[in-house]
């Protein structure tokens, strides 16, 4: 299975912050409330919650996609 990674459509993100609540070990918020993604790859065990975080983003700015180049 292709490795998955999280990405953000910055033009859509409105700093709701829900993603950081659903995926705290991978997403923190900066001083303005916008998500900071951890650099390391998503552990397999986290994938299900990552998918949930992506579908629950109120503006669908959080994207779960297969890693580029794989």
């Amino acid at each position, binding site marked *: 299975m292709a490795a998955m990674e999280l990405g953000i459509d*910055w033009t859509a993100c*409105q700093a709701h912050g829900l993603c950081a609540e659903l995926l705290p070990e991978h997403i923190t918020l900066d001083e303005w*409330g916008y998500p900071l993604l951890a650099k390391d790859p998503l552990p397999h065990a986290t994938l299900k919650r990552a998918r949930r975080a992506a579908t629950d983003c109120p503006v669908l700015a959080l*994207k779960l996609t297969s890693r580029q180049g794989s």
Partner: protein
Amino acid sequence: MTMTFTDIHMPPRLLAPGGTPSGHPAQVLRRIAESGLTGRGGAAFPTHRKLVAVADAGRRRGRPPVVVANGAEGEPASHKDRTLLRLSPHLVLDGLQLAAEAVDAGEAYLAVEDGATSLEAALAERRDRLPVRVVRVPKRFLSGQSSALAQYLSGHAGLPRDQRPPVREQGVRRDPTLVQNVETLAHLALIARYGADWFRSVGTPSEPGSALCTVYAPGRAIRVVEAPFGMELHRLLPLDGVGAVLVGGYHGTWLTVAEAATRTLTADSLGAGVLIALPADRCGLADTAHVLRYLAIESAGQCGPCLNGLPRIAAAFRTLAAPGPQGTSRRDVARWAGLVEGRGACHHPDGTVRLVRSAFTAFAAELDAHAAGRCTAPDRSPLLPVPGNRS
């Protein structure tokens, strides 16, 4: 400048379109690959790879691609693209047709800020296979960013969008789209005409060819010159009485004069082709602050980190540019630079951060002098051009 007078009933001879043969697309592609041509709009991406990617996307999706000649020179200090379009419009238009054939395009545009009328006249003199529409784009820093251009040509506001999917896959009205700087297209036309070896006869083996530069030397008029890659910067830009050099434009890099003396012209540092020598009696921090304010205003305001970070960086930098107490400004700028970098739909925050960090390095001594309450520059008026009264 090329003009067509409606009452003169003959096709132009002296001012006629150029003589680029429309070679077989596969042959043109092979020549471009062998030439090593890279994009001259700032990113220096290999032109052959972009052409192939767009052609593939067109075939795969069964949609003829759109080609866009990008003459939207939003960088205020750059004049090279408009100069090229004024002096050699047909070279650019030849290149546009060749690129269109290479990717089997169904539509072609030429995007410019101004000069559209004379370009339309030049187009009227040609018998192109694919008609070209000249489009006037808003005079904004980001107008020429490829996704912003694709958005504008699709009938939306000319603002960058998320890079997924990329413009080469889904650009103008979701068709695969080739956006190529006008200078790149002119090189492409010459390579088709004279071959890859001819192109590679100047420049370096790893960075072949030449590039147009807008050169600001103290006490001289602004010039657009063509120079080969690998040429020493000091031969392009006399460094006597110079304090620092800005390479690449407002998304570029400040070098101390000592560093500049050791550098050569490289494709990745050249950016938009701007070379500015800052006289030794000027304050580089004051000039950078002035440019940063402009860059913050020119943010499209769509992406949170850029929207929040750039105005804060610009304001704190203004504090640093004035002699006196700096408070936490230096640390704040460094932190905010880290927060905006890589966190936007386009590279506007990244380019702005490059300018900020290089200013911190090149003007380190001046920063300390300002902190101690003095400025070593007798002349604090800004030198770098910034368009006024844009909202």
